């Protein structure tokens, strides 16, 4: 065998080997979550309140808390994200301003989530006097997922064919009418996928809410604006720190599996919608 061929074979072997290694690690992680989490799952685990500091009972209120925070964040974020995209695409005409706007949004996307927690607490917890509460959590997460929604919606609005807009303009539509009749319906997929991705991001976030929105025990549903919630993420966090206790660990894995399922369902839905669109485009 000549040396070039040998080198080719060897490097291909290394390529496959390393890729298999990486893939294997990721597969092991998923399998671990499923095998460790599955034994904890049962109807009562899903629908009962936790007892004895999470060692017994279920994760009903934790799941509700996660859902409340993520849904609230998406609800608060959506009008702002939509508005900022429309402002950028419909009212900003200078390329420089557009560029700066884009840069600011992209920078926001890179901010470590713990910083959203710190400054978010200062603004919503202290200045708005919401304290450590679900409202503070919702607002912090809404800011955190803003770039996710913005980028997704922006992409959809930017790819609307030019003649759709021109048709609207030719009919003499005002900017408001143009948005309602042309832009919103044509970018609906971006709004949906962006919101789903934002929900997934909010559901997976722990650092930004652990000291701003949640309490560990003695909490079920918030009764007022300033009540803390309990969430799957922080529930796992507290149980994980008692890793020496097998009961705590089993319940942590169970909660982890539920959390992972929520996130995966949201991302899969996004991918599914997107691939459907691609197929439509190919037709």
């Amino acid at each position, binding site marked *: 065998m000549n040396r070039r061929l040998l080198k080719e074979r060897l490097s291909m072997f290394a390529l496959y080997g390393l890729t298999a290694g990486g893939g294997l690690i990721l597969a092991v*992680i998923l399998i671990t979550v499923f095998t460790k989490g599955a034994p904890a799952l049962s109807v009562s685990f899903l629908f009962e309140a936790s007892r004895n500091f999470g060692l017994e009972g279920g994760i009903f209120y934790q799941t509700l808390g996660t859902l409340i925070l993520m849904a609230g964040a998406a609800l608060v974020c959506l009008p702002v994200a939509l508005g900022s995209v429309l402002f950028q695409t419909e009212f900003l005409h200078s390329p420089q301003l557009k560029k700066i706007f884009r840069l600011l949004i992209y920078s926001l996307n890179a901010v470590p989530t713990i910083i959203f927690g710190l400054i978010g607490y200062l603004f919503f917890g202290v200045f708005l006097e919401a304290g450590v509460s679900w409202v503070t959590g919702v607002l912090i997460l809404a800011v955190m997922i803003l770039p996710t929604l913005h980028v997704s919606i922006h992409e959809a609005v930017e790819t609307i064919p030019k003649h759709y807009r021109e048709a609207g303009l030719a009919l003499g539509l005002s900017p408001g009418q143009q948005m309602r009749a042309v832009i919103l319906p044509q970018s609906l997929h971006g709004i949906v996928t962006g919101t789903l991705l934002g929900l997934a991001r909010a559901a997976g976030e722990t650092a930004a809410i652990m000291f701003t929105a949640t309490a560990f025990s003695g909490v079920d549903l918030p009764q007022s604006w300033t009540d803390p919630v309990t969430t799957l993420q922080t529930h796992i966090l507290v149980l994980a720190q008692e890793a020496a206790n097998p009961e705590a660990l089993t319940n942590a894995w169970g909660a982890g599996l539920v959390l992972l399922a929520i996130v995966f369902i949201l991302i899969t839905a996004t991918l599914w919608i997107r691939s459907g669109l691609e197929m439509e485009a190919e037709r």
Partner: protein
Amino acid sequence: MIQHSMFHEKGPVFWWTGLAGVMAAGTIVILFASLVIESVPVFKAEGISFLWGVDWFAGENYGALPMIFGSLAVTGLAVVMVLPFALASAILTSEFLSGRARLMVKAAMELLAGVPGIIYGLMGISLLTIWVRDVFGLIDGNTLFTAGLLLAVMILPTIMTLSEDALSSVPGELRDTALSLGLTRMETVTKVVVPQALPGLAGAVFLGIGRAMGETIAVMLVIGGIDRLPQPWFNLFAPGQSIPSKIGREAAEALGFDVQWSALIALGLVLFVMVMTLTFAGNVLLRKAR
């Protein structure tokens, strides 16, 4: 003419979108300004030596160096460990897989990039720390190395998929030319595609490092939580602390306005500056690649 009149017709739609736009774009400015303003008290108390002080005793003195070192060590370690795997799988996916298989891999990576940090943290605390302890014969498995290893696994999907984008954006004609000159497929990759995609690959790595540096929860659970420089400094099998893990551990007890809170915000400011520099560099490189 039409655009001109659109801009001047300031209906409710203009005000709603304008307000939203200002909120969206202004958030990052407010964030940065708050970090600067709120970290003033600790810089007044400690001076600029806050940045290289090595002791942190809440209520007495505040030095950030162990946390800055911890962040750099953990992130550097993660990047070194993840690069071979991420690049190999990116090259394989972009250059050797069929279109359909490529899309499947990309979808899987997108899914994996969404796995919450707390899941990795749980994995780290219940399995990885024990594993590291036994394999390396340590007393305690909560070390900088453990945190770096966990981070490496966490950022694998992100770096892989961004690198893959950079590789597959290299025009196909270059590959055809190289192959027609008699280069093997692997030679085409190493001598033509990778050099062409280098700025994009570097950009992908920078963005990945930025992401890794800000990761809080998983690192916090396995890093050991000791605010000390390891002795000697290159001993990464010692417990340490990163900036996000320090903030995560202390924020709840410091919530408020005293110097400890300000010191945590100042740590946040240091983190912010480091991450933004990386992200900015990454984006410049990515734009250059296009």
